[in-house]
């Protein structure tokens, strides 16, 4: 039996998760929320992580009903991500590892292609095509020539970024996240507005769509032609259809019969539903996307670390640095 604790703070969320042999014991997190219409700065984000680290750590231990002595290994994200928040989080991980006298494992985000092998280990998927969608990333990754390769990606902005920026136009709250609020409004949208749809091979582009809807939205809402709900609905339907299309193209291209969604935007239920339908029509399998596979949380990091620990790998303290790339 191995118990691993994982620290994730590469972006605006700080998460600490505890895993016991593949089972999530606890996974609390806290998001740094900026006022509506504002992005977040690395320095303020780092301050947020420093401020909340101990509370969340206590919560993680309490919810998991474990004491530090039960823990076998401490894991954290080395990168990539924003420098200051990464370092703040790593500092906490290093401190507790030394305090509790536990081995430490630091690694690059498991869904970065270099380490994506890990994702396969975790899910038990054999040959999945992975749609990796978050605030900073939009990639379709598939297994080819004995390693993971990026088949498609955004040629301009990431999907999460596109959603966030649209949320600012509608002045939606950043609590808990702009994307979540778009998802809720979209549920009540009815009238579909056709928006620019840009797919190039296995790549997508969102900037044209974003500037179109940024420009039109205020007027359409003011005139009463479309409600904010309709616009959120239309945006989601269009953007997600593009993502599913490139994922499907990559699957057809590689002959893959398994698909996995990871990353923050992957928590969107409508995206999962669309992916499920696509997979079903192709006779393929969609791998369960639960919180362990969303990128910004501690449980994911603990899970990946648990796998490494079992195979006998740990990181010497002198190598527990961070990297932004």
């Amino acid at each position, binding site marked *: 039996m191995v118990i691993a604790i994982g620290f994730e703070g590469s972006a*605006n969320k700080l998460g600490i998760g505890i895993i016991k042999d593949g089972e999530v014991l606890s996974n609390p997190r806290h998001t740094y929320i900026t006022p509506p219409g504002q992005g977040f700065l690395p320095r303020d984000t780092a301050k947020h992580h420093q401020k909340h680290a101990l509370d969340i750590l206590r919560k993680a231990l309490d919810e998991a009903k474990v004491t530090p002595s039960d823990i076998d290994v401490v894991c954290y994200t080395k990168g990539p991500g*924003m420098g200051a928040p990464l370092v703040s989080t790593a500092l906490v991980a290093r401190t507790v590892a030394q305090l509790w006298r536990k081995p430490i494992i630091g690694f690059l985000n498991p869904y970065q292609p270099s380490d994506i092998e890990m994702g396969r280990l975790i899910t038990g998927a054999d040959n999945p095509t992975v749609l990796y969608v978050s605030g900073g990333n939009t990639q379709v990754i598939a297994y080819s020539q004995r390693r993971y390769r990026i088949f498609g990606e955004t040629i301009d902005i990431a999907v999460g970024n596109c959603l966030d920026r649209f949320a600012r136009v509608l002045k939606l709250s950043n609590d808990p996240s702009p994307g979540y609020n778009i998802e809720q409004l979209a549920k009540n949208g009815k009238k579909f507005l056709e928006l620019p749809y840009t*797919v190039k091979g296995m*790549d997508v582009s969102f900037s044209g769509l974003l500037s179109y809807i940024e420009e039109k939205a205020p007027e359409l809402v003011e005139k009463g032609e479309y409600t904010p709900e309709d616009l959120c609905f239309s945006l989601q339907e269009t953007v997600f259809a593009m993502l599913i299309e490139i994922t499907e193209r990559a699957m057809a291209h590689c002959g893959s019969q398994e698909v996995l969604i990871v990353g923050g935007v992957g928590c969107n239920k409508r995206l999962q539903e669309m992916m499920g339908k*696509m997979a079903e029509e192709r006779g393929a399998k969609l791998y369960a996307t639960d919180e362990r596979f969303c*990128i910004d949380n501690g449980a994911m990091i603990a899970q990946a670390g648990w796998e490494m620990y079992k195979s006998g790998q740990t990181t010497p303290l002198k190598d527990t640095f961070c990297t932004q790339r």
Partner: protein
Amino acid sequence: MSSKTLIKQGAEAKLYSATFHGRPCIVKERFKKSYRHPSLDQSLTNQRIKSEVRALLRSRMNGVRTPTVYFVDLETSQICMEEIRDSVTVRDYIMSVQKSQSLEDSIVQLKPLGRKIGETLAVLHQNNIVHGDLTTSNMLLQSDPMNLNLVMIDFGLSHFENLAEDKGVDLYVLERAILSTHPNSDEFFSEILDSYTQSNPGSADVIAKLDEVRMRGRKRTMVG
């Protein structure tokens, strides 16, 4: 048209073989995607059929070999076109070359094909035809591959555009497709770019855009 038999199911279309007035033909049928909004689905399907048919014709008029279109039915979302008989995809051909010989030999043998592809893309782009989905599966070689009878297909994502940006992205899509599908294909892609540049007097802007798009990929911020 006679009864048809399914030969391939791609990402968005089923391909059948059939005969049209006694000639073997291919029927490409775009099927409904239940995951997407019905009006979006209908509009994309119609758009793509139209783009495909237009670009097939326009390419052929400009000297790039494509299947002849026999008829189009928007009701059933079908295009009936000439079957390119006795053909292999460039993808399968590259794989068979790489399998049957050493790395050095296969690089040498694939060079002329790279040149041919570069020249063909130069013709398309000079005529403002942006393919939109350049991959080695969307290029066929008819009869003996050594003869380089290159036939371009699958123009559903194509459009007519004189912008260097769009042409640059077209090359970028091909570069990624080649590098991710075929091992040790860097030189093959360089050969394509070389011959593209030599055959297309307006290529400097396009290559500049290609470099720009490549850079964008590396600069994207990491904010979760």
